């Protein structure tokens, strides 16, 4: 359960046996052809995979550098990569005989994905969501409710993703005997970071094949945004042993020089949160500080332990992008390519566009477009109102 120094299983004793059972069940499942077949079938027939790889020709021309390609996770059922993992975990829950699932959510994408698979598998579903995120993502809240899930607003702390995760863990500690906790990112105690990566690696596996089919080679660079980091790990998994430069992009919020950001690797220090040892935003006494990002999906003070390790070894380069840079990239993509990205994904776009400019046309850059931006329209509207653009 370790990635170098990082990871582990730092949880109350109550959860140790449930986690061991999940680890065992997952191990068996991944060796069971009927499990893998059902997982693949659902990805294909239910979520519409494979998602396509789109060449962003207009942007390539405008930037005048590397060819820009987008892995279109926004075309998944429910609008983001989160469904890949939710499908995997609900199948695991079913295999373990559980009939109730819980989840935490920030932007609501994982909450919607979980509510969706819970509906599909007839399971009771509770989604914990910070009260501030409930406000920012009201569309997704209603979607979850319509799917039959109970959305539980969390009022502690900053009322965002970290607090929702705390509350989900607390609830799980009390109800682990009959509840399965569907964690939405490559965070949490072992085996979650591993399970989530394995259920998200389909992104990279597909993209690698598709890209090779188009270009006859591998991309020069691969870029993905990192909150907890599940889309990035899923994307990177296929390229980690290849000669491909990997870039993870964190949320710099109002700037990493301010105290309003979520740039965990760039500015964080080692610590334990939500069950694993990783980089965290915290004060000298180990109190977790409140992160900030315009993107509810990146507004998290920790990061997946495998990312911490990949940052440490230097295999993946981590950068950060401010709110404004992300929004500019989002608008640029919409205007040039007719694609409305999630604000999360727009962080990857922004960094990737900067890279692309400095590269040449023989090179190429593959970006994980992790989700669509429909859910962010309210946030965008109020942002534009604020800056007087709408």
């Amino acid at each position, binding site marked *: 359960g370790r990635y170098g120094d990082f990871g582990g299983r730092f949880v*109350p*004793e*109550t959860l*140790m046996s449930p986690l061991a059972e999940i680890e065992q069940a997952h191990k068996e499942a991944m060796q069971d052809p009927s499990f893998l077949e059902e997982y693949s079938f659902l990805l294909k027939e239910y979520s519409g995979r494979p998602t396509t790889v789109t060449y962003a020709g207009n942007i390539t021309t405008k930037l005048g550098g590397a060819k820009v390609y987008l892995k279109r996770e926004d075309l998944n059922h429910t609008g983001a990569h989160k469904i890949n993992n939710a499908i995997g975990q609900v199948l695991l829950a079913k295999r373990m005989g559980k009939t109730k699932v819980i989840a935490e959510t920030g932007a609501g994408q994982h909450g919607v994905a979980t509510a969706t698979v819970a509906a599909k598998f007839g399971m009771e579903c509770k989604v914990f969501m910070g009260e501030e995120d409930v406000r920012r993502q009201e569309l997704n809240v209603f979607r979850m409710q319509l799917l039959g899930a109970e959305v539980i607003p969390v009022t502690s702390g900053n009322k965002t993703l970290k607090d929702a995760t705390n509350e989900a863990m607390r609830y799980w*500690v009390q109800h682990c*005997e009959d509840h399965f906790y569907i964690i939405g990112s490559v965070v949490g105690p072992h085996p979650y970071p591993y399970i989530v990566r394995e259920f998200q690696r389909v992104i990279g596996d597909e993209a690698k094949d598709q890209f090779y089919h188009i270009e006859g080679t591998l991309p020069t660079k691969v870029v993905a945004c990192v909150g907890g980091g599940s889309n990035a790990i899923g994307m990177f998994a296929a390229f980690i042993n290849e000669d491909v430069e990997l870039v993870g992009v964190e949320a710099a919020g109002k700037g990493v020089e301010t105290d309003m950001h979520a740039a965990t690797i760039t500015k964080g220090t080692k610590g*334990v949160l939500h069950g694993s040892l990783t980089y965290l935003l915290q004060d000298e006494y180990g109190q*977790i500080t409140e992160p900030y990002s315009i993107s509810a999906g990146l507004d998290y003070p920790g990061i997946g332990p495998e990312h911490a390790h990949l940052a440490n070894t230097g295999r993946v380069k981590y950068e950060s992008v401010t709110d404004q840079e992300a929004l500019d990239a989002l608008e640029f993509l919409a205007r040039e390519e007719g694609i409305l990205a999630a604000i999360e994904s727009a962080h990857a776009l922004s960094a990737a566009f900067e890279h692309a400019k400095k590269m040449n046309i023989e090179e190429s850059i593959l970006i994980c477009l992790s989700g669509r931006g429909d859910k962010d329209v309210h946030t965008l509207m109020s942002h534009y109102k604020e800056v007087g653009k709408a």
Partner: protein
Amino acid sequence: MTALFNQPINNQLFIPFITAGDPNSEATIDLALALQEAGASAIELGIPYSDPVADGPVIQKASSRSLKNGMNIVKAIKLVPEMRKKGLNIPIILFTYYNPVLQLDQESFFALLRENTIDGLLIPDIPFEESEELREKCKEYSIAFISLVAPTSSSRIKMIAEAAEGFIYCVSSLGVTGVRKNFDDSIASFLEEVRKHSKVPVAVGFGVSSREQVEQLAHMCDGVVVGSALVREIERLQPSLLDENSRRDAVEEFKNFARTFVS
């Protein structure tokens, strides 16, 4: 083996929990002394934490009150000598999440514990498998490393109980700390299993909130840990505890409340 209780145990252990700095440092010292007077066998001194996932809402709120007052792990540890100066002689167990500990250099942390006469260490989010190094250090510094076992521990009970030091903390039911009305019937067999393997006293915590429950548990274990029930009383008494003029009366009231848990 690091002993926490020097004398053989004649009656039930009463191990109360309070959060350091709630509602302020002065009150914490007075409350600790009151608990000793009420018959506490030891005190769990909680370090406030931003993300207390093992705690219910009562202790979460105490944590954030205390953090707002500027409390931190170092300040909290340094309260103990002040308690000792005022006559506290029962063991003090530091209850802290792992992350604050991790931020300190390990040697300095243990030196700090020893210097400040801390007797035990309880970290609710360090399971047995992740605790080996800390347990070694505790031995080196003669500090009891308190282990928790839960009803879900099942096959892990033996492993944990056999390695337990000071006392073994049994989670009464699934869950986080907090006040509960009733205990699960299955607790008896769970505690029996723990006692079979434990060489140290067996205490039950998480949800013990009334005299009746203490009596109900008495024949099954060596003692109880009471947290949320006391912290809620502190919350209620907060205005009086913060006022120099009324603190003495409030502490007295708290003492009387705490006494109800002692057999």
